[in-house]
């Protein structure tokens, strides 16, 4: 099978397959669970199959021209394959974890449909080379996300789902105007065409600003971030999927794709975006120290860490960009682990308020250790993977001479240590309050242990991820010049 067919399979197998899941579920829930995982694995394995060729230097292209400049144009380059691998890897773990988690609740057909559709749309989004196609997949993720956040159907929960939907769709529409502006000046929605059209000159600031609104709303950055902590009402695997691993990385990815890979932006943005990111990182970290809801704290932590990723991407240095990509990977693994740990705690204790939790380390040792290891990775403590990402982002920021900004982020890193330790100690240490539940589900505990182990191994054996990231960044910077 040639590459372009694999590429189509990677994108459309989960998108189409998701729609069939409810039918399978009617016949056998067990089969549906397996098929759901298999659909995600198709993306993972397919991307992995594409990887050697792509990282060897040959991009895989699928192109089908449609009307009005809306062309079905997919390209598997290094950045896309990297993002696809990260998303589908974490996605697969989360689907596996869901088997046990979601078995306790109703509406499972809808759940698996939306999760797999979401991951499929993510694949389409990362491989798309046409802005309108990208936008379409972007909105599919918003719809899936809306249903998943409102999964439990109580009125306050549905309202929060609406909020997430409204904020991100508002951002997306503003971004669409930006796309249309680019079309007006560049004459196309296709990124390769636009790249040639704007070669050597920065794209209009207005378009950058409009597109940024979309990116920042999707990646939950101040002041468009408050939907993310509110979305913590979703089932825990969903929050892991949305907040940690995949959804919030969409904005970051599109930022890297447009402003790292395709276009040159004026120098102002290399200062403005880092400061937005810095404010976002610091304010959300501060808020995380006050919050008492376990999942809100982790969600605010995501807002804060996304700030680090934006910093690395936006300062415009090679090491910063590489650090940001590495951080996307490591943060996805460890933050996903944190949310899934929170899910175990929530499901066994039926409690999310950390003031009413405590001493769970004794009865849930594996969860506690996995939580601590994942926290260490997010804090950036070696030998965990987060260390390298954090160092490289900081070094990239220093390299631009913005010392004050970098120190701001270092302060954010100290706050990260504080709020994660506070969360860990209040949930797992101290005296047990109320019930002392046991770890019941092996597949759930196994999933978090797997993610924690990956965070650790990914740091000790950094070579493969560092190599992936390095090749990606070299490719990016060559393309943008």
């Amino acid at each position, binding site marked *: 099978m040639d590459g372009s067919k694999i590429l189509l399979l990677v994108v459309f197998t989960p998108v189409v397959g998701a729609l069939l899941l409810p039918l399978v579920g009617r016949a056998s829930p067990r089969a549906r669970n397996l098929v759901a995982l298999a659909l995600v694995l198709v993306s993972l394995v397919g991307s992995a199959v594409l990887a050697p060729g792509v990282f060897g230097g040959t991009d895989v292209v699928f192109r089908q021209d449609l009307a009005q400049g809306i062309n079905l144009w997919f390209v598997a380059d290094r950045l896309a394959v990297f993002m696809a691998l990260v998303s589908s890897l974490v996605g697969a773990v989360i689907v596996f974890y869901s088997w046990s988690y979601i078995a306790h609740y109703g509406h499972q057909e809808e759940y698996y449909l939306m999760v797999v559709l979401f991951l499929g749309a993510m694949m389409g989004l990362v491989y798309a080379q046409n802005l309108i196609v990208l936008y379409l997949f972007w909105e599919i993720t918003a719809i899936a996300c809306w249903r998943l956040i409102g999964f439990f159907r109580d009125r306050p929960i549905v309202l929060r789902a609406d*909020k997430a939907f409204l*904020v991100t769709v508002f951002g997306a529409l503003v971004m669409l105007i930006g796309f249309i502006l680019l079309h007006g000046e560049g004459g196309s929605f296709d990124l390769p065409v636009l790249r040639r059209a704007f070669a050597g000159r920065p794209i209009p600031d207005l378009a950058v600003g409009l597109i940024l609104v979309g990116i920042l709303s999707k990646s939950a950055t*101040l*002041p468009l*971030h*408050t*939907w993310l902590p*509110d979305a913590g009402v979703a089932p825990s695997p969903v929050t892991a999927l949305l907040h940690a691993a995949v959804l919030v990385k969409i904005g970051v990815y599109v930022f890297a794709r447009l402003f790292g890979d395709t276009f040159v932006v004026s120098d102002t943005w290399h200062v403005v975006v880092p400061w937005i990111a810095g404010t976002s990182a*610091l*304010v*959300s*970290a*501060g*808020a*995380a*120290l*006050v*919050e008492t809801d376990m999942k809100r704290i982790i969600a*605010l932590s995501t807002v804060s860490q996304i700030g680090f990723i934006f910093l690395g991407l936006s300062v415009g240095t*090679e*090491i910063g960009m*590489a650090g940001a990509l590495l951080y996307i990977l490591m943060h996805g693994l460890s933050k996903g682990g944190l949310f899934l740990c929170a899910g175990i705690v929530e499901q066994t204790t039926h409690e999310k308020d950390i003031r009413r939790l405590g001493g769970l380390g004794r009865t849930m040792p594996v969860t506690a250790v996995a939580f601590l290891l994942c926290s*260490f990775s997010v*804090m950036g*403590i*070696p*030998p965990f993977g987060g*260390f*390298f990402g*954090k*160092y*490289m982002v*900081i*070094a990239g*920021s*220093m*390299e631009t*001479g913005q*010392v004050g900004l*970098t*120190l701001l982020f*270092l302060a954010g*890193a*100290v*706050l990260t*240590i*504080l709020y994660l*330790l506070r969360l860990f*100690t209040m949930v797992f*240490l101290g005296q047990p309050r109320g019930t002392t539940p046991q770890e019941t589900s092996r597949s759930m505990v196994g999933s978090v242990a797997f993610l924690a182990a990956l965070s650790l191994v990914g740091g000790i054996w950094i*070579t493969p991820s*560092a*190599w992936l*990231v*390095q090749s990606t960044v070299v490719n990016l910077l060559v393309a943008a010049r």
Partner: protein
Amino acid sequence: MPAIPVTALLLVAFPALGALIVLLLPRDASRSWVSVGVSAVQVGLAIQLFRAVHGAGHALAWSAPSWAYWGLEASFRIDHFAAFVLTAAAGFSILVSLYGVAFFAGRNDTRSFWAGLLASLALSSGAMMADNLIFLLFFWEGLLGTLFWMIWAGGPDAWKTAVKALVLVGLSDLCLMGGIALVAVSEGGSSLSLSTIGASGGLALDATGGLAFVLLMIGATSKAGSLPFHTWIPDAAVDAPLPFMAFLPAAIEKLLGIYLLARIALELFALRPDTWASHLLMVLGAATILIAVAMALVQRDYKRLLSYHAISQVGYMILGVGTAVPAGIVGGLFHMINHAMYKSCLFLTGGAVERQAGTTDLARLGGIGRAMPVTFVSFIVAACAISGVPPFNGFFSKELVYDGALERHWIYYAAALLGSVLTAASFLKLGHAAFLGKPAAGTRTPKEVPWSMWVPMLVLVAGCILFGVYNPLPLRGLIQPILADQLAGHDFAGLPHSWLLVALTCIALALALANHLWGARRSGSGLHAVDHIHHAPGLSQVYAMAERRVFDPYDQGLVVVRGFSLVSFWFDRGIDWIYDVVSVRVAHGIGRGLRALHDGSYSLYVAWSLAGVIVVALIVALS
């Protein structure tokens, strides 16, 4: 004999593997012996490396092929200095492990401690051998995790201290990270290798380089336990298992911190005496000596008192290295290894007392010297060494530091000497209160500790005597070769060069003794021998504030952070209010307004339509 890269790799991998084995072992008793065994092999490997470096006559360097990403390179460089601290670290590991065999006997919760100890050994060995700064940071910052882990092993209430340690040390490690990033900027990103930068003459202390120096210095000195990020150490002395104190804060962290400080100051920045950086280091050193020893003086707990000295003595090392003159640097580095020996020994005596007498509260101790003669003798030797009494090792290294400090400015010398008076005074108090006098009522009569606990103490005592009486061995064999080029022909071995300084030292020690005798007679007990200083006007208020943790950057920092986070929280809520309330109200308002305009009245609709037609007509007419 395996090749050098293999030995270097083994020095990291072997203890790491040991940590893994300890984690998996089912029985506690076997863990301590695994640790002893692994440490013994580690000593063998380190000695082999030391001999190889010595034989080669130059540093051995090695880097992993095809492993360089943005200045991050897996490169080792083992020179005389590195091989020396590596061997010392392994040596302390074996002594503490042996000590722990009996100390932890009968306990079934030592898994974290032993695994943490071996993991710390692996990481610190890596940090000592790393040449690339990011590679160094990888190992260095990794010690955060093991630090947290080992303090946490102290029991159900130790985690608060563990959190405090992780936050404070994490803060200083992040400073180190920022400093390394700045070095990369200063260097133009070409190389982050210590030896390459050192060979090219070092970095300039300009705006970027200067900030880099300060950040790196914070990282290095804080690891060694200097002000102001030291306040977790006294808390850990109470909460953490005692062998932890003898191992990390007393020995390994001192070796690491001063090792890196020397590397930064002497190699990376080629520090000269006429720079502000040199003065900064000396001020930091002097302040650390005085403030920490003043705190040590008034402690009433054996372990807490010792922990303040673990901070205070770092001041001498920083002061010595900071002088940037040969005598001071040699003295500082000599003091580093001396301190590791006598302070470890002192903590081990503390552990012996704790285990045998059941307490380390000085008010409840007393008169145990007769019952625990080996411990008492070890205490006396180590206390003399730390107080700088001839002919023990601490005397010679302190004389060198004095020499260097006086060469720069008398004020630094005076601070160091005053520190020595107070050090001696506090150890007279400690020894008197714990080992002499009458036993407190209701306490049990202790027995001497088992052999596996007194052997490590006596080994360290022997070291304190040997390194003092026969100081050419450490000075010519270990310390001076580190500075081969910078020494300019000086040789500091043998007796001190300045008899005036020796005389002043003796006067200082006599003063301390007189103060103690007077204070003890006045108050009637050894424990209260320094109460006249504690309660002196002016000082007593400062002490009271210190006891309320007014000067603790952790407690004060948390207040600031709490304030900041409340502001952030309400700012965040404010933004959310715009979404949840304002935008909803605006939407409702617009909706109500529009609905009011669509009330079903036919005449109103016609009026609207006419108005529309007029507007369109006007636009057409005007354009």
